[in-house]
C-alpha cells in the first residue's frame, strides 16, 4: 500500500510539473483548453466538498460564480483595480453573499435545500441584471487590453518570449492550476481533521451527530462559506479569460452547476480524486462527441444514470473497490494494540 502511495505521489508530482510547464511548451489553444478543464475541476471539487462530504446538495453554485465574476468586473471597471485584486474581491464577495444565502437555505433540507439554493441564485441573477453600471441585462466587457496589463504579464512575456495575450493566458492558467491544487490540498487537510470527521458524521446522520457533540449548523456554515469563496475565486478568474460578462452567462445553471454535478457523480462523489477522474472523462466525451450535437448531451445523461445505478461511488469508487488502491484515503485507521487506558471513561463533575 505504501509502495502504491509513493508511486502515486511520484506520478502526481510529475503530472503537476508537466502541467505547470505547459504554457512554455504547448500551443496557446491547448493552454486555453486546459484552463476550461481546470475551471470545471475547481468548481467540481468545491461542490464535492459541499454535497459529497457535508450532504449539502446545492444547485445554486452558479450564484457564487456570477457574484465573483461581477465583483471582479466592478473592481476593474468601477474602481480601476488590477484584475488579480479583482479576483480576490470576487472570492470575498461570493463568501459574503453566502452569509445571507445560508441564513435562508439552512432552514431547508434535502431536495428543498437544492431548490432553495437554485431560487436564491436566480434571484441574484435578476438583481445583478438591474445593475446598469455593469450593463444591466446585456452585460459588459472588460476594457480593451485589461488582461494584457495585468500584474506579472510583462515578466511572463519576457520569460516565455510570447505575446502579451499568451502571457495573460499563461498567468490565468497558472492561477487556476494553483487554485485547483490549493483546493485539493486544503480539502484533504480539512477532511482528515477533527472538523472533517464531524462533517462526515453530519452527512451520515445529523441527529446522531448532534447527540455526540457535533454542531451541525456551525460546521455546515463553515463549509458553505469556504466553498463559496473558492467558487467565487474560480468564477472571477474564469471571466478574466472570457473578458465579457452577462447575467445569463455568469449565472448559468447548466455551465456552472449541472456539468459540475455530472463530473462529480461520474468521477466519484464523496472521494477526493473523484472530480479529477470525472473532469477527464467529461473532457474526453466533449472531444469525442463534439460533432454530434444533441447526441452528446444524451450520452452524458445516459452515462450519468448508468454510474448512479451501477457504480454509486463513481468511477474512482469502482477503481478502489476493484484494486484496493486509494491515493487520497480519508479513513482513520484504528491503532493495532491497546497499550493502556489513556483517558478516563467518565468525566469528573
Amino acid at each position, binding site marked *: 500500500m505504501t509502495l502504491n502511495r509513493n508511486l502515486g505521489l511520484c506520478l502526481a508530482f510529475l503530472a503537476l510539473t508537466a502541467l505547470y510547464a505547459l504554457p512554455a511548451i504547448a500551443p496557446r489553444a491547448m493552454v486555453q483548453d486546459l484552463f476550461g478543464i481546470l475551471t470545471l475541476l475547481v468548481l467540481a471539487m468545491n461542490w464535492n466538498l459541499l454535497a459529497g462530504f457535508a450532504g449539502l446538495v446545492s444547485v445554486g453554485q452558479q450564484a457564487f460564480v456570477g457574484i465573483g465574476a461581477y465583483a471582479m468586473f466592478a473592481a476593474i471597471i468601477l474602481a480601476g483595480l488590477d484584475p488579480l485584486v479583482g479576483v480576490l474581491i470576487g472570492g470575498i464577495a461570493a463568501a459574503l453573499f453566502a452569509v445571507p444565502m445560508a441564513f435562508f437555505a439552512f432552514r431547508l433540507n434535502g431536495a428543498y435545500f437544492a431548490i432553495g439554493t437554485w431560487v436564491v441564485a436566480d434571484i441574484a441573477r435578476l438583481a445583478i441584471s438591474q445593475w446598469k453600471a455593469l450593463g444591466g441585462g446585456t452585460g459588459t466587457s472588460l476594457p480593451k487590453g485589461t488582461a494584457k496589463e495585468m500584474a506579472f504579464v510583462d515578466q511572463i512575456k519576457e520569460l516565455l518570449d510570447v505575446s502579451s495575450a499568451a502571457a495573460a493566458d499563461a498567468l490565468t492558467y497558472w492561477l487556476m492550476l494553483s487554485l485547483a491544487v490549493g483546493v485539493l490540498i486544503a480539502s484533504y487537510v480539512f477532511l482528515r481533521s477533527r472538523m472533517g470527521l464531524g462533517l462526515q458524521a453530519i452527512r451520515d446522520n445529523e441527529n446522531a451527530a448532534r447527540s455526540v457533540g457535533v454542531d451541525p449548523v456551525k460546521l455546515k456554515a463553515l463549509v458553505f462559506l469556504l466553498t463559496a469563496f473558492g467558487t467565487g475565486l474560480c468564477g472571477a478568474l474564469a471571466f478574466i479569460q472570457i473578458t465579457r460578462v452577462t447575467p445569463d452567462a455568469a449565472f448559468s445553471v447548466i455551465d456552472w452547476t449541472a456539468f459540475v454535478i455530472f463530473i462529480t457523480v461520474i468521477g466519484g462523489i464523496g472521494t477526493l480524486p473523484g472530480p479529477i477522474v470525472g473532469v477527464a472523462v467529461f473532457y474526453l466525451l466533449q472531444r469525442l462527441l463534439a460533432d454530434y450535437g444533441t447526441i452528446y448531451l444524451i450520452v452524458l445523461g445516459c452515462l450519468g444514470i448508468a454510474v448512479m445505478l451501477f457504480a454509486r461511488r463513481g468511477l474512482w469508487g469502482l477503481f478502489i473497490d476493484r484494486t484496493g488502491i486509494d491515493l487520497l484515503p480519508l479513513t482513520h485507521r484504528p491503532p493495532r494494540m491497546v497499550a*493502556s487506558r489513556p483517558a478516563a471513561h467518565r468525566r469528573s463533575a
Partner: protein
Amino acid sequence: MAILSLQSVSKSFGALKVTDDVSFDLNAGEALGIIGPNGAGKSTLFNLITGNIQPDRGRVLIDGQDVTRLPPMDRVRAGIGRSFQIPQPFGHLSVYENLLVAARFGGEIPASEAPGFCMDILSRTGLATVAEKPSGGLPLLQRKRLELARAMATRPRVILLDEIAGGLTDAECVELVATIRSIHAEGTAIIWIEHVLHALNSVVERLMVLNFGRMLMIGQPDQVMASPEVREIYLGIEA
C-alpha cells in the same frame, strides 16, 4: 446534590400531551429504569433531557445548573450521553470512526489520546474485531453495541439507554447487560428505558413508570412491579 433533575417538565405536540408535569432527581452513580406502554412518552422524555426537544414548561438541571435552553451539543459536553432506540450509526464511517467522532467532539479528548481511548471502549463492548468495518453494514447486535460504545466515547456522567436490549436474543442480552453493569460499576449514572424487564431489573436501583406522559410511580423495582395499578396498566394483569 442530584446530578440530573427534571422539574415539572411538560411537552405537548398539538393537542397531545406527551410529557405531563414530570419531576425526578437522579443521583450520581445511580441507575434508574423507565417502563411504560408504547406511546407513554418515554423516548420523548429522553429527547427533553438531551435537548433534542424543548419543553413547553419546566426545567432541566445538570449539577444544579439550568440547561433547559442549551442545545444537545452543550448537554453532551455537560456529561449527558445517549443511545437511540433505532440505531443511528454514521453509516459511511467505520465503527472506529463512529467512536472517534464522539470522543473528539463530545468527549473532548485530545487527538493523541483518542485512538487508544476508542479502542479500549471497542474492546469492552466486543467491537474491536469489527473496528474497521463500515458501520452501516453491521448486524443488529453490533449496531446496538455501537450505540452503547459511541455514547460511552462522549465520557458521560449520565448515560441514557433507549431500549438497547430490544430485539436481542437472551444470550446477546446477557452479554449486553454485563457491559452495562460494568459501566455502572465505574460510577456512571444510567437511565434505561426498556421492555426486557429481567434485564432492566438486574441493573437498576429505582424504577419509574410512565403512562400517557405522566409519572405514575417511582420507587424500588420490586415495589413498583408489585403495584396493582402498574400491573394492570403495563402488564395487563387485573388486580
